[in-house]
């Protein structure tokens, strides 16, 4: 029964987040700054299938730059470019890249997190990977963390040759925490008993570890 319920569930769109490496990394880096352990500049973007129209490489890298200049003084070259915005075409990728490359050296070490890079369109992803390769090559203080489905791993490696891959899958502990939280919010608690609870906590982690 549990197995059937799980496979039915896998066929639907899941809405409850339980493991998100990017958000953990972002919060962890923020904590290091807050505790005074490290000074750094942080920017991120969550790619999303549902936001293809808005998430061009130009918009994504623009959002990275926007975060990097979100506090502190605005670098002069960005202000100058802004003031000339009506006399030329709109912002293009080379414009954003130019501003990023001149801004990053002004900042503490720059950390960029791109979540779900597989959810970007192929065109955006290619431009994004090419652009981040340039940034990493030219800015020794910049580092990038991607998350993504394994099918884009080769594509990422093609552009970023020194990339380190870390396989991510929930541990048994992760799954039990998640199940415990879901069962706490069970809308039909009267159908639960100790035996069923124990079965769920035992069988589902086993099934997931087989996937």
């Amino acid at each position: 029964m549990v197995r059937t319920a799980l496979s039915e569930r896998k066929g639907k769109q899941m809405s409850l987040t339980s493991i998100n490496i990017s958000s953990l990394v972002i919060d962890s880096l923020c904590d290091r700054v807050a505790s005074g352990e490290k000074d750094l500049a942080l920017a991120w973007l969550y790619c999303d299938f549902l936001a293809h129209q808005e998430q061009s490489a130009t918009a994504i890298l623009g959002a990275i730059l926007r975060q990097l200049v979100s506090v502190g003084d605005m670098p002069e070259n960005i202000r100058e470019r802004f003031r000339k915005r009506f006399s030329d075409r709109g912002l293009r990728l080379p414009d954003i890249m130019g501003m990023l490359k001149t801004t990053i050296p002004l900042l503490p070490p720059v950390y960029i997190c791109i979540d779900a890079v597989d959810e970007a369109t192929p065109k955006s992803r290619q431009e994004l990977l090419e652009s981040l390769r340039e940034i990493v090559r030219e800015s020794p203080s910049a580092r990038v963390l991607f998350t993504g489905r394994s099918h884009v791993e080769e594509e990422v490696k093609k552009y970023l040759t020194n990339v380190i891959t870390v396989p991510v899958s929930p541990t048994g502990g992760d799954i039990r925490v998640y199940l415990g939280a879901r069962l706490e919010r069970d809308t039909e608690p009267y159908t639960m008993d100790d035996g069923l609870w124990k079965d769920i906590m035992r069988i589902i982690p086993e099934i997931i570890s087989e996937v």
Partner: protein
Amino acid sequence: MSINGNINSFNYSNVTNVNIGTPDEDNQIREWLSPLKPQQRHQGVRADRLDGVGDWFLETNEFLEWSSGGDDFLERVLFCSGGPGVGKTYLW
């Protein structure tokens, strides 16, 4: 740490600026750079996160080296790869 609003950049002591911009103009510049608002998405994701889930990742050597390495550290790009049945964003 409580995260609200401007959490992206910190203590920039060495940013050079020789300009006379206004806070209003700075906000306009940020809007002009990109319409995307990744902070909002982050707030949503972290609100749904369960305490303790995935914390093991922060203890991996790969992450520790990536996050604390110096400028001469060559492996400055990490790719966290999730299988097709096990989302890197969602557990399932």
